[in-house]
């Protein structure tokens, strides 16, 4: 059964130096508060997996938490580059970063295969694409029934998955709604997990019979961190802060402005910082 803890206790318990960590959330529900706590606790030598590194991994990479990144699209969506990621890849700052690059389809399939307990993911992919030439983990397999050559990559089996959910009930079940990304798959594929949530409720109440719920016994730890996805968003609670994503381009462009921002907004803060971004859910407000 899931254990309730504070964010700092949760990160302390689930993330160790050298771990392979997947902090997922496809644009929606990105676990920023948890990422910041990893920075505050100075975790090192992590292998970070995420389809879209986004600002959260730009921050972890720039703060020297990562040795390796496994990803499929490393930009600031609709804005441009992730400058800290680029600096690490192009100039080795603050440390050399190994990259393992895939396509979105490959990453999604690898999480799904991990959740399904399979050793590899098989899909129709990478045909005529150079990524297969530079990533030795992209291989092919011949369908024994049709003879078609298909792409195969190892499944994702992270040490830890960290996601942000909308609600947990008192029993520790977690509800997700909206853009679901690969969060369910990431949790089910991982050895350990931490879920931060907007809200803890006695009961989920009336809900869709097919709602996306992770049962308590599939989750390691739960921390109540309202606003914990900001500047990403939580469907029905608060919107994506697109203006901050645009502003990040300026903050992260230079090493010193980045470090100053991280010091003022992450290192000198704690997990209560995010509550100011939280908004009551629309349902609760009605």
């Amino acid at each position: 059964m899931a254990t309730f803890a504070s964010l700092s206790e949760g990160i302390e318990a689930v993330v160790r130096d050298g771990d392979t960590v997947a902090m997922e959330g496809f644009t929606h529900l990105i676990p920023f508060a948890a990422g910041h706590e990893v920075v505050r606790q100075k975790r090192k030598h992590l292998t970070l997996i995420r389809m879209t590194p986004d600002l959260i991994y730009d921050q972890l990479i720039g703060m020297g938490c990562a040795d390796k990144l496994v990803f499929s699209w490393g930009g600031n969506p609709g804005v441009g580059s992730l400058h800290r990621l680029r600096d690490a890849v192009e100039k080795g700052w603050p440390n050399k970063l190994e990259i393992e690059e895939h396509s979105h389809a490959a990453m999604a399939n690898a999480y799904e295969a991990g959740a399904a307990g399979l050793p590899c993911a098989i899909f129709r992919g990478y045909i005529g694409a150079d990524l297969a030439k530079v990533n030795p983990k992209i291989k092919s397999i011949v369908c024994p029934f049709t003879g078609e050559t298909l792409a195969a990559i190892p499944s994702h089996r992270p040490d830890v998955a960290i996601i942000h959910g909308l609600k947990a009930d008192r029993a520790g079940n977690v509800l997700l709604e909206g853009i679901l990304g690969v969060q369910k798959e990431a949790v089910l594929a991982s050895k350990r997990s931490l879920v931060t949530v907007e809200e803890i409720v006695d009961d989920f109440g009336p809900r869709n019979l097919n709602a996306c719920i992770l049962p308590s016994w599939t989750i390691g730890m739960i921390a109540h961190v309202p606003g914990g996805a900001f500047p990403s968003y939580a469907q029905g609670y608060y919107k994506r802060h697109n203006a901050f994503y645009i502003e990040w381009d300026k903050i992260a462009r230079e090493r010193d402005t980045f470090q100053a921002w991280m010091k003022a907004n992450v290192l000198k803060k704690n997990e209560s910082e995010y509550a100011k971004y939280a908004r009551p859910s629309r349902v609760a407000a009605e």
Partner: protein
Amino acid sequence: MTATYTPNEIMTVVAARALKNSDVLFVGIGAPSAASNLARLTHAPNITLIYESGTIETKPSVLPLSIGDGELCDTALTTVAVPEMFRYWLQGGRITVGFLGGAQIDKYANLNTTVVGSYDAPKVRLPGGGGAPEISNSCAEIFIIMPQGRGFVKKLDFITSLGHGEGDDHRQRLGVKTKGPTRLITDLCIFEPDPATKEMTVTSIHPGVTCDQIQENTGWTVRYANTVAETAPPTAKELEVLRDLHARTKRAHGEAA
């Protein structure tokens, strides 16, 4: 009297016109998203827009900044998880048109969004492929929107997604059954693949654009189809809808949460 418009506006308008009411689109952020929604707000009200974040039949009132803005989910018929999106909907062959762009393109419409320079020691590390390597081969056909200039190169530093490969029947030889890039829409003209060689060939030139201009902004020797049309300029209505959309979008993204 023709309305005045920017090169970017005519590129977006021309791309929108290429879309049909019956199309099922896999939409990317930026110019593809603007063109798709312009089509939906003008001649193709029932066009189906799908974004890779899992939103199906979405009808955003403003353009999303990211591929997964809440607006896309709020206005979608349904939203599926990302593995399902790539497996059932894209790989499953349910998409008629995929929209792509890139930092670099060659004459066979192969695209690079990965690196400038070598992969191991890149001069510029670009965002990478995202969905493109599979979009390029799973959709029935591909439209590419890209302003012309330095990105139109003789040889790509990296092939992120397959266009027509080395030309001719290269796609078929690789076992790909879909058409690949059938239109390359730029700020100067429209290219379409030559039926035999598959080299992207100019079939329509935007008003006031010269062949010299097209050549100066292309890294290979440009070929022209036997009959080359002049692109009809954007209508007042098309420009009004597009500008309204951009103005609404700017207001929405500029506001503080």
